[in-house]
C-alpha cells in the first residue's frame, strides 16, 4: 500500500495531493492534462524532488517529519519521461547498471535480461551507445532498465509515448502480468485513455496540481463525465468469464448472456476485462435479423444522459447488473422513443471488443 500526502511548489505552480492511499498491488493510472503535475507527483514520491509531507510504502515510512529515506534506498523502478539513460554507457551498460544493484543473484541476471531484451526488441542494440538511439529505442531501454532493477514499486512516466502500437500491444499485457505476478504496485502516467482502460485498476485524476479523484476504473467509467471519455467518448468495461472458442469467436459469459469476442490470447479461467466503446453500441427495439452484428443482448435502460452536440448517452443494465453505455444521437432516441425502464437490445459488433 502506498500512502502519501505531499505538498510542493514551483514558481507559478502549486502541488498538493491531500491524503492519498493506493492499494499494495495493481496499476494506478495517473491521468491529467499536460503540466498538471504528473511528473511532479512521481518525482516527489520517489524523493527526487524534496517535498513537504509524508510517504509510506507498505507501512514503511519513506518520508515523514523526521525522516527522508534517500532515493536509492526506496527501490523504485522509474521510467523517466525523457528516458534518462546513462549517456556514458552502452545499452548493455545501462541494463547492467540496473542488474548489478538489483539484488538479483548473479546467476539470474542473464535470464532476467533476456526476457525483457526479447520483448522490447533490444537484441541488436546492446552494444550501441545510448546517445545514438532513436526515440523509441531510448524509451524501450528505459523500460527494460527499470524492470531489471527489481523494484518494490514501478513508476512509469508515459512509458509508451514514443512506441509504435505493436510494441505497445505486446508491452501492455506484460506490464499487467508483472504487476500481478510480483504484487508490485505500479503508477502509470499516461495521456492515453486507451492505456488507462486496458491497464489500470484505479485512476488518479490530477488537475492543476490537485488530486481531483482517486477511484477504481469501474467507478471512473460509470461516471459519464469522466475525463477519460473526453477523447473517444464513454467506455464501458465489462467483466466476464471466458468460455470456449468456436468458429474463431470466443465466448464470454456475462450472467445469462453470451458475448462473442475475438479469441483471447491468454485463455485461462480468470475473469477478463472487455472494453466496449459507447459509440460501438447500437440499440434496437427488437432483436434484429439479417445483420452482421453478432452480439445482441437484452438490456434495460437505466438512464438517458444528454450530451453536447445533440448526442445522448444511454446507460443500460445487463441482467447481471453490470452497466453498459451506448452513445446515440438524440434524433435516434426520439425516433425509437427510448425511455428509462424500457427493455431493448444492445448490439455490439464482436470485433469491437478489446481485451
Amino acid at each position, binding site marked *: 500500500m502506498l500512502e502519501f500526502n505531499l505538498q510542493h511548489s514551483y514558481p507559478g505552480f502549486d502541488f498538493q495531493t491531500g491524503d492519498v492511499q493506493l492499494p499494495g498491488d495493481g496499476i494506478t493510472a495517473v491521468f491529467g492534462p499536460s503540466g498538471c503535475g504528473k511528473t511532479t507527483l512521481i518525482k516527489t514520491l*520517489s524523493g*527526487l524532488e524534496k517535498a513537504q509531507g509524508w510517504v509510506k510504502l507498505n507501512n514503511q515510512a519513506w518520508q515523514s517529519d523526521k525522516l527522508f529515506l*534517500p*532515493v*536509492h*534506498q*526506496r*527501490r*523504485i*523502478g*522509474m521510467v*523517466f519521461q*525523457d528516458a*534518462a*539513460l*546513462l*549517456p*556514458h*554507457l*552502452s545499452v548493455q551498460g545501462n541494463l547492467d*547498471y*540496473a542488474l548489478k*544493484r*538489483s*539484488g538479483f543473484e548473479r546467476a539470474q541476471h542473464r535470464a532476467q535480461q533476456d526476457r525483457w531484451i526479447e520483448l522490447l526488441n533490444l537484441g541488436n542494440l546492446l552494444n550501441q*551507445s545510448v*546517445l*545514438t538511439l532513436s526515440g523509441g529505442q531510448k524509451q524501450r531501454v528505459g523500460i527494460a*532498465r*527499470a524492470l531489471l*532493477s527489481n523494484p518494490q514499486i514501478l513508476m512509469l512516466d508515459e512509458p509508451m509515448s514514443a512506441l509504435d502500437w505493436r510494441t505497445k500491444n505486446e508491452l501492455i499485457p506484460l506490464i499487467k502480468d508483472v504487476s500481478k505476478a510480483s504484487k508490485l504496485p505500479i503508477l502509470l502516467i499516461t495521456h492515453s485513455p486507451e492505456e488507462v482502460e486496458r491497464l489500470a485498476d484505479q485512476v488518479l485524476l490530477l488537475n492543476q496540481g490537485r488530486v481531483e479523484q482517486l477511484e477504481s476504473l469501474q467507478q471512473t467509467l460509470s461516471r459519464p463525465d469522466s475525463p477519460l471519455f473526453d477523447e473517444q467518448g464513454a467506455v464501458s468495461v465489462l467483466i466476464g468469464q471466458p468460455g470456449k472458442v468456436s468458429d474463431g469467436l470466443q465466448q464470454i459469459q456475462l450472467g445469462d448472456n453470451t458475448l462473442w469476442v475475438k479469441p483471447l490470447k491468454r485463455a485461462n479461467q480468470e475473469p477478463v476485462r472487455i472494453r466496449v466503446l459507447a459509440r460501438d453500441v447500437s440499440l434496437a427495439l427488437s432483436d434484429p435479423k439479417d445483420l452482421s452484428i453478432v452480439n445482441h443482448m437484452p438490456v434495460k435502460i437505466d438512464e438517458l444522459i444528454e450530451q453536447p452536440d445533440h448526442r445522448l448517452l444511454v446507460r443500460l443494465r445487463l441482467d447481471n447488473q453490470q452497466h453498459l453505455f451506448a452513445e446515440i444521437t438524440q434524433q435516434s432516441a426520439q425516433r425509437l422513443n427510448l425511455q428509462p425502464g424500457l427493455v431493448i437490445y444492445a448490439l455490439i459488433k464482436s470485433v469491437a471488443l478489446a481485451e
Partner: protein
Amino acid sequence: MEFMDFFAITPAELQALWLTFKLAFYTTVILVVFGAPLAWWLAFTESRWESLVSALIALPLVLPPTVLGFYLLIILGPYGWVGGTMEAMGLDHLAFSFTGILIGSVIFSLPFAIQPMREGFASMPRNPIHAAATLGAGPIDRFFTVILPLARGGFFTAIVISFAHTLGEFGVIAMMGGSIPGETKVVSIAIYDYTQGMDYAAAHRLSAILLILSFLILAVFYALNRRFMAPLKL
C-alpha cells in the same frame, strides 16, 4: 641506453627530474582528491558567499609566485605561524622540505584544479544521476559510476593543468625550497641555474629532456581522454 647517452643526463639531473614528476604527481592527486568536494560545493551551493569564496580561491594565482613563495617561506618557516607551531610541537618546520614545496604547489595550483572541476560538475546533466539513484546507487556509488564519468572533462582539465603547471613551477619553489638536492631541487630550478651559470648547452639539454618527457606523458593523457570521452561526444 643510447637515448640516455645521447642526452647524457647526470645523476643529479635524474634526481631533479624524478623529484619534479613526484611533486607534480602528488600535487595533482591532492588537488583532485581534496579539491573535488570544494568544487562540488561551489558548483551547487546556493550560498551568497559563493562568489566571494570563488574569488578567494583564485587569489593564489594573482600573487607572483615568487611573492607567494616568499610569504609561504615566512609562514612555514620556523618563525612563522605554521612552522613555528610545528616546531613547538616538536616537529620540523616546513620550509626547505619536500612537504613544504608540495604545500606550496598545492596552494599555487589550487585555482587551476578547482575551477575546471567545478565547471565539470555544473555542466553535468542531472537526469542520469537521478536515474542512477532510482536504480539503487547510493551517493558514493553514484559519484564513481555516474558523476565522475559525466564530469570527467572537468577532471581531465584539472589534472592536465595542475600536473603541467607543477612541472614548470619555479617561483614558489625557488623562494621556499632552497634548492636542496633530492628534497627541493626540481628541474625548473636546475634549468634556471644552468641559464644563470651561462651553461646554455646544459640548459637546452635539460629543457629538452623535460619537454620530451612531459610531451609524452601529456600525449598519453590526451590520447586516453580522447578514447574515453568519445562515447560522450555526439
